[in-house]
């Protein structure tokens, strides 16, 4: 991962061209190159990069003088995590009940409606949905602000935009695993025991059906992180997504590297978290 990022960042253009003004002399080039360590051979650069990265040091930013790349990422990360977390919450709150409902009422109007919503969700371009939501709810109705970060009302539109795509996929998954569980023997037993239907569905079935969608969470975390790039750019949300776009445009490799590594780290962390949650939800896994 680090190698891919490093190679891409280095081999695809000379940062000096962007950093220095047009009239810079060869001497200027040399001086600046030495200052940033760009005069060293590439493998040395890579070794230095890895050594420092392991200590959480990605070097100083080129575009924002006087800031470290890691510092910038750390400063922007809470905004992205907040948005992604809220988007996840929104999509779970929608997908779970609708998915369960469409499984319980399979073949009825509910089911069809849910299917249509899911299909639409997978076909909507996120950036466009963001603009349309902005147009309807911010410009016309004036319920929410158009962009920026602030209280809860700033977060709703970006979160819905970011979460929408997940809703569709998650709903389908919840539905199919619910259908499977509803059909199993132990559910018949709970019914024979005379449990209330809502308890059968929401407690016994959902707990068992939640396993499959959970695997999906790890993927969702990745999608939410990359999706944040688009959403943050639409709503000018001051998170890492916006940061990385600015950094890429300015060829600020240190910052790009820091963002990509941090994203990868978050991805690994969520995978771990999901594994732990698994064990909690499904005791069978603990003994395997």
């Amino acid at each position: 991962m680090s190698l891919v990022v490093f190679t891409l960042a280095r081999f695809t253009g000379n940062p000096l061209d962007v950093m220095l003004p047009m009239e810079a002399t060869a001497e200027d080039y040399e001086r600046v190159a030495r200052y940033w360590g760009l005069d060293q051979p590439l493998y040395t650069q890579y070794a230095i990069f890895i050594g420092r990265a392991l200590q959480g040091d990605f070097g100083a930013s080129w575009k924002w003088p006087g800031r470290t790349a890691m510092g910038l990422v750390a400063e922007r990360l809470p905004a992205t995590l907040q948005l992604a977390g809220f988007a996840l919450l929104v999509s779970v709150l929608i997908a779970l009940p609708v998915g369960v409902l469409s499984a319980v009422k399979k073949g009825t109007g509910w089911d069809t409606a849910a299917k249509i919503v899911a299909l639409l969700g997978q076909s909507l371009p996120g950036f466009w949905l963001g603009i349309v939501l902005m147009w309807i709810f911010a410009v016309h109705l004036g319920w929410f602000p158009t962009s920026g970060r602030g209280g809860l009302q700033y977060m709703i539109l970006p979160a819905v935009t970011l979460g929408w795509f997940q809703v569709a996929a998650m709903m389908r998954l919840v539905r199919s695993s619910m259908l499977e569980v509803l059909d199993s023997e132990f559910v018949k037993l709970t019914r024979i025991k005379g449990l209330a239907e809502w308890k059968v569905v929401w407690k016994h079935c959902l707990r068992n059906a939640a396993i499959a969608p959970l695997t999906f969470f790890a993927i969702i975390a990745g999608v939410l992180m990359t999706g944040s790039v688009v959403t943050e750019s639409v709503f000018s949300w001051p998170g890492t997504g916006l940061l990385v776009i600015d950094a890429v445009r300015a060829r600020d490799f240190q910052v790009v590297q820091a963002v990509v590594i941090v994203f990868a780290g978050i991805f690994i962390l969520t995978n771990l978290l999901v594994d732990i949650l698994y064990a909690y939800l499904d005791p069978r896994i603990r003994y395997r």
Partner: protein
Amino acid sequence: MATVTVRTLPWYAPPRVAQAMRQVRRLPMVPLFLLTFLLVIPALLAPQVAPYDPLKGSLAKRLTPPAWHDGGSIAYPLGTDKLGRDILSRMIYGARVSFAVSFVAIVVGGLIGTSLGLMSGYFGGRVDALLMRLVDISLSLPTILLALVLVAAVGPSFGTVITVLVVLLWARYARLVRGETLTIKERDFIARARVAGASHTRIMARYIFPNVINSLIVLATLQVGYVILLESALSFLGAGLPRPTPAWGLMVADGRELIVSAWWVSMFPGLAIMLTVLALNLLGDWLRDHLDPKLRNV
């Protein structure tokens, strides 16, 4: 005595015609209809059906609203953008761009992925291990970030976009084809071909490949929608096709700052993306159910 009832047979269409009719009626009409009008006709006949040049506008006519709106004119049915270019014409040419990008990217990605997948599954061993690691890496790359870095470095162009898309697409084909090859190569007819003296290349190309075509077609169809979405997202971020290409994603981006005053600039291209992708997804689902039910969970 039993009476014999003579029933006159109703007129039947000749069996072959009837069968063809049944086949036609089973086709998914809505998606095919949508696709024809949104993608195929505009892409193939753009110069004939587009009323204006997609790149030239008249500043006097800038930001004309759509025809049914106050101040709109029938000359520009969907209005004009801030440079006075006709939105309908740009959308029609945009279909051509989307079509070209997704077609080239999927064909190239599919070819690379299929041949690597065939080799990986057929030869196994170290080749397989190495290729599958590459697939894992490629599938775990953060899509948009990778594209942003690459495009920012090389500069936005048709070639860059295709490269990014191919890098992202090939792995799925490789994985799919490898999986199928693994089961097919154990079948009797492969062993017989081997005994008959067919070379490895010939076995892969003539005996295994035809057996994976169905799955490939399904995957490719399902991916067209994904590619169109991805390309438009990249263009929207300024990391896709360069301006002034009439790409749908770019058009949505153009209208972004105008959302308060001129909603139509980004509304219609976005709708086009949505309906096209929707139709492609429906068509892909239908194809999957009919050609290759195994792929349900891909």
